[in-house]
């Protein structure tokens, strides 16, 4: 009733503003997803339609040739297999390192807490940079192995702080009660703290998984063997080939009337690389604003 009263009080100018706000928000949302729809449409178009006549999102001739090609070709599928391996191993490692490190630091009476936290925060402002890290990975013998893609990134200071803040929000009474019942510190962590932290675990797990899946630079830096390359790197070479460049950005020469032939294949490869993320996203996104990010801001 109250809102009805407010609505009546609104001036015509204000109502126009309100309509504009809704239209504006809807337009922003459409712009955010439109490119994906274009890619979906294009991946089902014929090569001729892609290169010769314009169409909007829905192609006039429906074709699955591009997908047939990438299945037969096998490169991008092999890359996806590698990406799945890296993402799964990397996420499990990262969750182990992050939760075990964050839990002691979430206890206010933990001795040495502020020293450790300060040392962590220093690394958020200052880091060794690309070359010292590269030389370290090389010295550790991790070059050309998935260890280089999964282990160095397994503990992000930022995610650790979010996790710690979330643990701090768990009422200490619950933990104290478990201690009374004879639970050890690890028992409390496993039986009380982790089950209560599902929203944070889901969000941070997604952050790590997405980072690992999307990582392009790490793979380019550390993986040389083509059979070990992840989907992002293979997609990149497919895109560049379709664009007429080689991997280091120099123009390829296709001859006098040679068009790069792989537009539809490029779109289909883009599609299969993005789909895993779009599949997981809806299940986890509801946790984002609740709790986790709020905790990050307050911390």
């Amino acid at each position, binding site marked *: 009733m109250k809102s009805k009263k407010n609505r009546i009080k609104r001036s015509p100018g204000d109502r126009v503003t309100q309509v504009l706000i809704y239209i504006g928000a809807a337009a922003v949302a459409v712009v955010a997803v439109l490119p994906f729809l274009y890619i979906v449409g294009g991946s089902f178009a014929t090569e001729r339609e892609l290169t010769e006549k314009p169409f909007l999102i829905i192609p006039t001739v429906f074709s699955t040739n591009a997908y047939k090609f990438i299945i037969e070709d096998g490169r991008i599928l092999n890359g996806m297999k590698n990406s799945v391996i890296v993402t799964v191993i990397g996420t499990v490692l990262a969750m182990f390192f992050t939760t075990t490190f964050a839990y002691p630091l979430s206890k206010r009476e933990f001795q040495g807490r502020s020293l450790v936290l300060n040392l962590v925060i220093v690394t958020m402002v200052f880091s060794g940079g690309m070359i010292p890290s590269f030389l*370290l990975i090389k010295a550790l013998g991790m070059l050309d192995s998935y260890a280089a893609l999964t282990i160095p990134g397994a503990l992000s200071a930022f995610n650790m702080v979010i996790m710690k803040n979330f643990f701090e929000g768990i009422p200490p009474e619950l933990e104290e009660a478990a201690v009374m019942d004879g639970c050890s510190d690890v028992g409390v962590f496993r039986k009380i703290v982790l089950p209560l932290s599902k929203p944070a675990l889901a969000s941070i797990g997604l952050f790590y998984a997405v980072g690992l899946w999307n*990582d392009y630079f790490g793979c380019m830096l550390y993986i040389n063997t083509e059979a070990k390359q992840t989907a992002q790197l293979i997609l990149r070479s497919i895109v560049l080939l379709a664009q007429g460049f080689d991997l280091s950005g120099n123009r390829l020469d296709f001859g006098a009337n040679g068009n790069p032939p792989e537009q539809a294949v490029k779109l289909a490869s883009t599609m299969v690389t993005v789909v895993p993320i*779009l599949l997981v996203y809806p299940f986890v996104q509801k946790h984002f604003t609740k709790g986790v990010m709020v905790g990050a801001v307050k911390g």
Partner: protein
Amino acid sequence: MSRKHKLPAAAAKVPFGVYFRRHWWLYLMLLPGALHFIVFKYVPISTLFIAFQDYNPFAGYFGSPFVGLKHFRNFFGGHDFMNLLKNTLAISFMNLVFYFPVPIFLALILNEIRHIHFKNAVQTMVYIPHFVSMVIVASITYTLLNEKTGIVNLIVEELTGKTLPFLSGPQYFRPIILIQSIWKETGWGMIVFLAALSGVDVELYDAAKVDGAGRWKQMWHITLPAIKGTIIVMLILRVGSILNTGYDQIYLMSNSLNRSVSDVFDTYVYRVGVGNGQYSFSTAVGLFKGIVGCIMVMGTNWIAKRCGESGIY
């Protein structure tokens, strides 16, 4: 509540030995992460001294000769420096002026929307680009802007009769980078402002309405002050990373035709260091970048505190 818990903890401040014996499990849990931080964060920081050496992998960290500030002199005196600085600052300032306000603006718009389902739907959609890799973003950009087949050039051709070389023309590089950043990160960048706004007491708005404050007055006197602190923190972080243009995006969008504007410190370190094997020289470049970043963060933080804000630490 917090007072109740602080008191016993403060009263029962036990000696470290006693605490350790009682809670050694906690220290054991801390160990893997602590080792990780030492090996992958602090070892690289401690090997930064190779910036002052002529490091070669066969002589190792301790066998390579020290050369003092040679690499820094070569870098600042070399002809690459000014161009790198110009390109890096151009991209950073462009992002600061044109990208930085966009998430704030979008958060203010969403804050005005009262239909919760509509608001949730918009949020779900605008977050998606954040989770897509830069390789995908570059792929989409190439597809949309291709000179012969891209939809943008088809429209341009329809209107003007000719096509524009978006992907090879150096003059288009920076605007494309900016549009990519806005498209990819606006939604996600908005989340911290929405979180800050969720803490605002709704009664403030009702009281303002009773006092006859319109939409703009409410925004100016209630909404903006509520997110002012967050805006300042985000600004400090952005100014602090002024030499960090990010590696992936620039590298993925650069090619032999636009290198005059696409070469920035991050891509330069990679090309000279990993590509040419000039480890010491590129470490010096990286160290310069890191020190400037540190100074910028501390400087902006100091200014924010002088202006009565809480800053980041």
